[in-house]
């Protein structure tokens, strides 16, 4: 990496900063309870809940910071926040 003058950065440069390590609670997906409403995917502030073609979602744990918005907003409690343990 080189610092451009004034710290100007091109789009997408934060991909290299994997922020998953900030997470304390991990979203656990109960696919059987999911009704494919897509709210979790729409509201994720880090674009880490990705809707698939079949309507279900997958979680990108490289960038999910564990904020829990997806679990809080899920109308069917299909996302559970569990403590990260080694």
């Amino acid at each position, binding site marked *: 990496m080189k610092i451009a003058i004034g710290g100007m950065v091109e789009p997408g*440069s934060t991909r290299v900063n994997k922020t998953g390590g900030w997470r304390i609670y991990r979203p656990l997906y109960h696919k059987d309870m999911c009704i494919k409403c897509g709210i979790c995917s729409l509201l994720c502030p880090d674009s880490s809940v990705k809707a698939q073609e079949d309507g279900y979602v997958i979680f990108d744990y490289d960038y999910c910071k564990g904020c829990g918005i997806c679990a809080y907003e899920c109308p069917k409690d299909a996302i559970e926040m569990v403590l990260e343990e080694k």
Partner: protein
Amino acid sequence: MTDNPMEKMSVVEGSYATAHAVKVCRPNVISAYPITPQTHIVEDLSQFIADGEIDNCEFITIESEFSALSALVGASAAGARTYSSTSSQGLELMHEVVFNVSGMRLPTVMTVVNRAVSAPISIWNDHQDSISERDTGWIQLYAENSQEISDLTPLAYKVAEDKDVMLPAMVCMDGFILSHVFEPVVLLEQDLTDEYLPPYRPEHILDTKNPKTFGSFADPSVYTEFRYMQQKGMDIALKKIEKAVDEFTRIFGRDHGGLIDTYRADDAEILLMAMGSVVGTIKDVIDEARIDGIKVGLLKIRSFRPFPVEAVRKTLADAAVIVVLDKNISLGLNEGSLCTEVKSCLYNTDINTPVMGFMLGHGGRDISKGTIHMIIDKSQKVARSGIKVENEFVDVRGDLI
């Protein structure tokens, strides 16, 4: 260039000369907030805009100085040539943004019409306002007269916008003493200014069609390098200012000196140092003292940031005593800022000349020729018998304290 420059002169207010210089630099965004004694500059610019004399320029009347400079951050990042001017409390209110502009490497130019800072409230001149912004990463140039403030304006843009510099610049002029005084000035010619100052073409601009991030976050693993790169920009600016001065002289035919200027300094045993309009008074006093056989000369600082360490060392090398006049004080050190800089560039050298500091002209207190003569008398004693008092206030009224 003309045969007789007198024919090209007009008698105008210092603020008008400044506004006119800004106009011919073809700015794209001007933000204006009134504060004495700067207000006439933006009033004149407002009139130019109203008269259709500045093409492709937005004039923003804004709600505070903090916003005035913040607006220019966005405008400059979007590729505009930007301008504002301020004084005293206005500059202090901008302080946070002053750092942002230089950290983001945006080449804004701002005229600082120097005025004392509150409290106690004072609208009159000293240098405490701009000196307080010394470490913010802005180029700081100081003008002696209206012609110089005029001529420094395109020069400031040229250096600031140089791709190897990319630092903002403050052009400083003494409030009232220059801003409100009418002097004969050659107003900058549009065709010559166009030849001297090319349009601003930044490498990166803020653009919705091609999004980029400006002013991003830096964690401890990269922050140091930002400061290092700003300092490198300042180092390069030293050379670029000299180069820009040469080119100015070639095109406009005027020469006020480079990073520094000197007056009767070649054989001087006593070297006076100062910045701004007081230099004119000092030159007159030097002429008078020379008649009496006193070998006194002047070293005028034009570029306070970057500070011209080498040029100062070279000029001071043969003096018997160095006398620094400051219109500011670092409270707690009992020393003016220029005096501190001069001492710092003489340490670790072979030059072991006494440096005397005088703090004067605070809050617009008049600096008379008599005061300068008195300072020269004191310095003659120091040249003979060594220094006892390093720094002192001048003209303190004992009857008031």
